[in-house]
């Protein structure tokens, strides 16, 4: 991971210190907890889908700055999107949105929330 980009790093730290869409939900359409037992990174993501759109999405979690900031960034991105748009999102786009060069070890932290989203989409059969 290259930290030379201070501005970008500040962006990450901001999401880490003040995560967006942070919290749980009463009646989510889907909910999933993804975790990496090796480093203890964990996110629980809850999603509310209506009219084939993401009405709301929230997460709680713990772990390193990258895993938590990535969840915050991802939930921002996802809110209001249609199911189809969600299905077309790629891992690469997600990593680009984080915007700092991550080594192979830290990439695993970053994609934890993305994997959670993927699995929820797989589980979600439609209305």
């Amino acid at each position, binding site marked *: *991971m290259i*930290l*030379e980009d201070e501005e970008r790093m500040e962006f990450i*730290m901001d999401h880490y*210190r003040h*995560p967006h869409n*942070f*919290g*749980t939900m009463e009646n989510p359409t889907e909910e999933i907890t993804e*975790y990496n*037992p*090796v*480093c*203890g*990174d*964990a996110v*629980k993501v809850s999603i509310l889908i209506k009219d084939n759109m993401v009405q709301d999405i929230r997460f*709680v*979690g*713990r*772990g*390193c*700055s*990258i895993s*938590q900031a990535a969840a915050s960034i991802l939930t921002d991105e996802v809110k209001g999107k249609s199911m189809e748009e969600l299905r077309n999102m790629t891992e690469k786009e997600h990593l680009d949105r984080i915007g700092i060069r991550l080594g192979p*070890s*830290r990439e695993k*932290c970053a994609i934890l929330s993305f994997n959670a989203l993927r699995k929820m989409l797989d589980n979600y059969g439609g209305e």
Partner: protein
Amino acid sequence: MSRWEQIKQDFPIFNSSKNSDLTYLDSAATSQKPKCVIDAVREFYENYNSNVHRGIYGISETATDMYEKSRENVSSFIGSSHANQLVFLRNTTEALNLLSYTMGRNLVSGDEILISIMEHHSNIVPWQFLEEKGIKVNYTDITADGKLDMEDFRRKLSPRTRIVSLTHVSNLLGTINPLVDIGRMVHDNDSIFIVDGAQSTPHMKVNVQDLDCDFFAFSGHKMLGPSGIGVLYGKEDMLESMHPFLGGGEMIRTVTTSGSTWNDVPLKFEAGTPNIEGAIGLSAAVDYLRGIGMENVRNHEKDLIEYTLKMEEEYAIPDMVSYGPKNTDIRGGVYSFNIGEIPPMDMDEKFRENGVMIGSSVHPHDISTSLDAGNVAVRSGHHCAMPLNHRLGVVATSRASYYVYNTREDIEKLFDQLEKIRKVYDLGR
């Protein structure tokens, strides 16, 4: 320049244009290589490269000679009475698996193997493989200050304990275990005594005869040598009575369609073409270490760990915790620490309640990455000792580990940076 600064000059990586001003604090994972080792490998390629043992021409006889002299050199380095007690393998892991596969043949359901909770996965998983045969693996606990709990050990050493396998030095706590005493108990119990020497051989004088262990395993790459070369020492009668592990070229005497017979030890355990330049490189590393003197290596690292504990007190970084004995007489140059609580995955109640459980902690990953930005290389994670992490109530730690090329300045740099990182990550929640 101090002696140790001079020694650092022998390691080309610290003058590499690719890494400006590297502070390498990850020698417990793997060590850097001095020029003499790199040259030994290259010179072999350029002058004598050929297969060993079976050639009857000049360079092959030279290669065989270099390979066997390497065995003798490494053998005497660990105080083995004879070079044929030394098997060249890939690493410590392969050595311990060789033992699990071959000794495992003789164990029956109900037999027990006693290890400890501070073992590296290499000294856990191979024994767990035997559990499907009804063999039980027991784990000696540790004390609050990171030592083997000797009372627990005595309790768990039972008449059914056939094998006791322990690490000489913990790769996470740095604890130097009292193996001479333990070995006596093990043999009084008629158990086989195996020592994982991966973290001792590089850092202190090792004498397998003083330890009176039956087997002793270590890796070249952690002691200034190449990777892909490791050693299993075994008492000659033990090695002779064991079934071979891998079958193939060189380990046989005769092969017919109705059966095969085995070569003498140690070749019986070296099937196929070995890592020839690896053995030669390891021998060069041993020469280099002998040149420094293993007592000096140990004293230098003891000084570094003492200095580390002193810096820890002086800097007094909020929420910083470290692990392992404070008594540096029984502590190697390994310093594992955390900033704040980094609980294991099954302690997740709080996580469920109110979300991000980061409080004032800095995740070890963030510590490593941030230190890396200042060219300080430490390892973060479970250090291949998950059961020990769990025992300590953490999922991971950061670890600085030292070797001959480290100096007090490295430690000052570490703490300077940690102090800054702590501030950046302080969430004040």
